[in-house]
């Protein structure tokens, strides 16, 4: 038997064949592939770093990670947001140890180097030890990211000056994102706090689960569904009127029945609320999007943010090595909702998709074992099957992106791994191919006419 050794030659084509519909398991296991992901994906892509509502006032900050790089996200006096490394340029010490707060400066514990809320070096303890010419303070601030962007309240940052604009990066996925971020006047906010947990799985298993895996829900979550809804089973899926849509590696799987995810939340008042605002939603977003919102659905923004529109969990999968991620979860609500609806949603999310949630508990266990079985050298040489629905691609007059019919499908997952592969192989952004025909480049994404196919 020929033992094929893992070799990293900078080309990853041999680790998957998405036309045939399979992946090599080593993309979920090898340290060298993970290290390359940090360089090729996390050091280049636009990454979610905050929701605006988490840092409303000047001096408000939070700390998070871009890949494994710790960063501080801070609201400026002019209301803009800056993002910089949470590491002192003197000896590298971590500068800020809080999850969030408000401050006038960041001071390093080691030698008292002090930085403004914009990250600029202001001064240091016993400054007289530096003679003239020893240090140009203007050059030794906390390292800024290359670009910061905002899409309807979600703040993203990228380390790569050459990254496309955030608008181009999200592409036509903005049409879908508007259902989450702009379904009512006033936009969204995150409920206070953040629940974090550790799962011994590869980060991509979380992302791909939310990007397209409606298929697992009826089986994995049978117990959770019945628990939350008086014994009723998972809602029936209509394979004719449900879809996968993907663009630039982002993806949204959804029905068009409008109520499935709202039912799964197990909070009838929330369903009532959305049914009440649905006609207005249709005016804002069109009939189609008002029917997609609230249906059985899940979505991911490449590379590592996911959410359930309707259930309102919003989460990020923070990679911590090839076999572990930290899951950070929030609850996203419309600002204009009455407090009791916000509270109902918060409780519903906690009971379904918190670490003690009736749904979440069965997911983590699966992803850990999907990852850990690859410890076996023979096991990890085996392929994984990703071919479901491979011939169901359609052109849809109303739905932008690469669209497949039937939400039980591996299409979004295949497209996510296509983007992964494109980025892993590409030396620069110019080499990353456009895999779909955008309808909304430079165009308004709101309104009933947005996103329609133009003949």
């Amino acid at each position, binding site marked *: 038997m020929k033992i094929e050794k893992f070799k990293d030659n900078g080309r990853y084509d041999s680790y998957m064949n998405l036309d045939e519909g399979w992946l090599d398991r080593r993309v979920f296991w090898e340290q060298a592939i993970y290290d390359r992901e940090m360089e090729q994906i996390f050091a280049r892509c636009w990454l979610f770093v905050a929701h605006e509502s988490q840092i409303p006032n000047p001096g408000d900050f939070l700390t998070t990670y871009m890949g494994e790089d710790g960063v501080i996200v801070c609201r400026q006096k002019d209301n803009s947001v800056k993002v910089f490394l949470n590491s002192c340029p003197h000896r590298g010490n971590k500068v800020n140890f809080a999850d*969030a707060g408000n401050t006038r400066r960041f001071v390093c514990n080691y030698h008292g180097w002090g930085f403004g809320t914009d990250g600029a070096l202001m001064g240091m303890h016993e400054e007289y030890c530096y003679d003239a010419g020893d240090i140009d303070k203007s050059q030794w601030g906390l390292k800024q990211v290359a670009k910061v962007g905002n899409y309807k309240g979600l703040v993203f940052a990228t380390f790569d000056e050459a990254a496309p604009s955030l608008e181009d990066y999200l592409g036509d996925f903005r049409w879908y994102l508007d259902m989450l971020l702009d379904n009512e006047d006033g936009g969204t906010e995150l409920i206070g*706090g953040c629940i974090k947990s550790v799962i011994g799985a590869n980060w991509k298993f979380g992302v791909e689960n939310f990007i397209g895996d409606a298929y697992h829900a009826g089986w994995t979550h049978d117990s959770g569904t019945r628990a939350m809804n008086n014994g009723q089973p998972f809602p029936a899926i209509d394979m004719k009127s449900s879809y996968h849509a993907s663009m630039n590696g982002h993806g949204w799987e959804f029905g068009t029945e409008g109520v499935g995810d709202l039912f799964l939340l197990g909070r009838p008042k929330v369903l009532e609320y959305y049914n009440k605002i649905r006609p207005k939603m249709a005016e804002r977003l069109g009939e189609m999007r008002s029917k997609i919102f609230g249906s059985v659905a899940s979505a991911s923004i490449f590379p590592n943010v996911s959410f359930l529109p309707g259930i309102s969990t919003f989460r990020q999968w923070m990679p911590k090595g090839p076999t572990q991620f930290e899951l950070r979860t929030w609850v996203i609500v419309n600002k204009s909702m009455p407090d009791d609806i916000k509270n109902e949603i918060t409780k519903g999310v906690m009971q379904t998709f918190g670490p*003690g949630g009736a749904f979440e508990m069965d997911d983590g266990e699966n992803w850990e074992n999907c990852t850990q079985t690859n410890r076996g050298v023979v096991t990890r040489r085996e392929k994984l099957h990703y071919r479901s629905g491979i011939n169901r691609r359609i052109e849809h007059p109303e739905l932008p992106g690469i669209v497949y019919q039937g939400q039980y499908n591996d299409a979004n997952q295949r497209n996510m791994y296509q983007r992964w592969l494109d980025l892993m192989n590409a030396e620069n952004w110019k080499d990353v191919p456009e895999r779909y025909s955008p309808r909304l480049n430079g165009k308004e994404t709101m309104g009933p006419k947005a996103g329609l196919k133009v003949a």
Partner: protein
Amino acid sequence: MNLEILKTIEQTLYREARLLDQERYKEWVGMLTDDIHYHMPGIENRYRRDKTEQVHDMTRMAFYDDNLEDLKKRLRRLETGTAWSEDPATRYTHLITNIEVVPTEKEDEMLVYSNFLAYRNRNEKDQDTLIGNREDIWRKTAEGYKLAKRMIILKQNVLLSKNLNVYL
């Protein structure tokens, strides 16, 4: 403090821990009052000068913020027979220590402090240990003391476990 009350409440806490170890959840629910509030807040790392109320602000995110109906809903998952990650069963041990009983303004209610160590082990070698403080209200009823309120402070920022299939 009347030693007999102290002993009775201690024994009640130990009995509760034994029921949880043995997954005897129906009996455990029988130890809860109809108006129970079972709360475990999520607590962020904040600087000492930051006075953000993280424990008592009920609009913030939590691991548990449950009334009796909410708890029953969660427990129903185990009765479906399809809670795959609970089969084979998790092995639990709850250790309860540092019990203090303090009278309250209400004659029938006792404020009870305690610490817990909950050990979980499942499958081949999954294991974790959850440690923290509890602040309870136990109410005297015809059926003995029942739990009316529990505030759990887990001593972790990032939950160092994949889930919380456990009651503390």
